[in-house]
């Protein structure tokens, strides 16, 4: 009976957190891989759609109408990423588990903005900016991050005649 209690203790102390961590990793990485696949596919579809960060329009753009377009995304951290980042926080260094998360957020926000612009019939976006904001805290003690929000915005333009003045 004592042996059983020791084993139960061992499981509760080490096995269970490990199991939860692995389950979180499994779901988190599945979702992440799927998201990256979707991002690459949609980026390929938007390959010929100019999205630039110039704050003034190139001189040769002959524009008939324009509007501000935005794209934003909110992604939650999974338990695995949060725990590993927490460990990283003890000794310092690159928080490697957060990097793909921010990468996904940036590209998804840009994609949503571009897709929106294209749906509205625009031909390009200039003066593109990215903003990020910190959402609610994950824990009641004010520590931890619940997720990341990324906002992309820019000025979408419709050309009077497509690349009329080019070259």
């Amino acid at each position, binding site marked *: 009976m*004592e042996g059983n209690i020791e084993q139960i203790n061992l499981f509760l102390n080490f096995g269970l*957190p490990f199991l939860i961590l692995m389950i979180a990793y499994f779901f988190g990485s599945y979702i992440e891989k799927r998201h990256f696949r979707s991002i690459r596919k949609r980026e390929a579809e938007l390959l*010929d759609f*100019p999205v630039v960060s110039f704050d003034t329009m190139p001189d040769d753009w002959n524009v008939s109408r324009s509007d501000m377009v935005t794209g934003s995304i909110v992604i939650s951290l999974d338990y695995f*990423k949060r725990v*590993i980042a*927490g460990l990283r926080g*003890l000794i310092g260094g690159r928080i490697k588990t957060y990097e793909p998360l*921010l990468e996904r957020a940036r590209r998804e926000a840009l994609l949503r903005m571009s897709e929106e612009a294209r749906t509205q019939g625009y031909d390009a976006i200039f003066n593109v900016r990215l903003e990020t904001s910190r959402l609610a805290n994950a824990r009641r003690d004010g520590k931890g991050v619940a997720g990341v929000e990324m906002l992309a915005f820019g000025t979408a333009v419709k050309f009077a005649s497509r690349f009329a003045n*080019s070259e």
Partner: protein
Amino acid sequence: MRFVAKRQKEGVNVSDTHPLVEASTLIVGLAAIFAIIAVALIFVVELALYFVSAEDEANLFGDWLPDDLITVAPNDERLYQTQLLVDRLASHWPGAPYTFRVEIDDSEIANAMALPGGLIIVTQGLLNQVESENELAFVLGHELGHFRNRDHIRALGRGIVLSMFFAVVTGNDAAGIGIKAADITLRGFSRRQETRADEFGLGLVHSEYGHVDESWRLFERWNIDGSSFLDLVTYLSTHPETGDRIADMKRHAELERWPVDGEITDLSW
């Protein structure tokens, strides 16, 4: 200006390290660091024990009480009787450097502990569970054994290490695993201390009553009685498995030719 369509470059912003590699490096590394710190602190405590004598310790902590201790009323009969019992047992330890003081903590979890300066704390939970003076005498004798070997200082060292770790990693579940690993490492060291304290306590009980009957009856009850499952787990966290423990005590009594049957003294409250 001409627009040339290009694919997004990938990879610069994301490290190549596989997340599982990152995770295992961090977890194993931190567990190792924690274990090294724990072992280093054990060494420091041993050094302190070498340089600070029990007499110095008794002088330093002679009237010290933990801040968070919630005691029973000072005129409680159980307090008086337990103190008396400790004094009787300690009289069989000639030249003891401590003046032993007993306090009763109002916790319902059965436990007893030895603290610096000769302070013995027993919980109400323990007093509720002992059924004879002999049972209680052994638990108190065991704690006196810790003073004899000065394990209480080692236990304090262990407590300091663990609370230090807790302060560093508050709220991080994975780092919590590191703390548990350190705890288990430290616990390995304390098993031997428990056995030695048991043997010393048994000797005191024998000197006082002329036999060691009912010394381990409390543990036998905990072993059989499923209802004290929780108590058993908390008790296990600092003490050896009760089954082994009883066997060890029986073996020791046989070796020393101490009678295992004798007259049982009822509790005086």
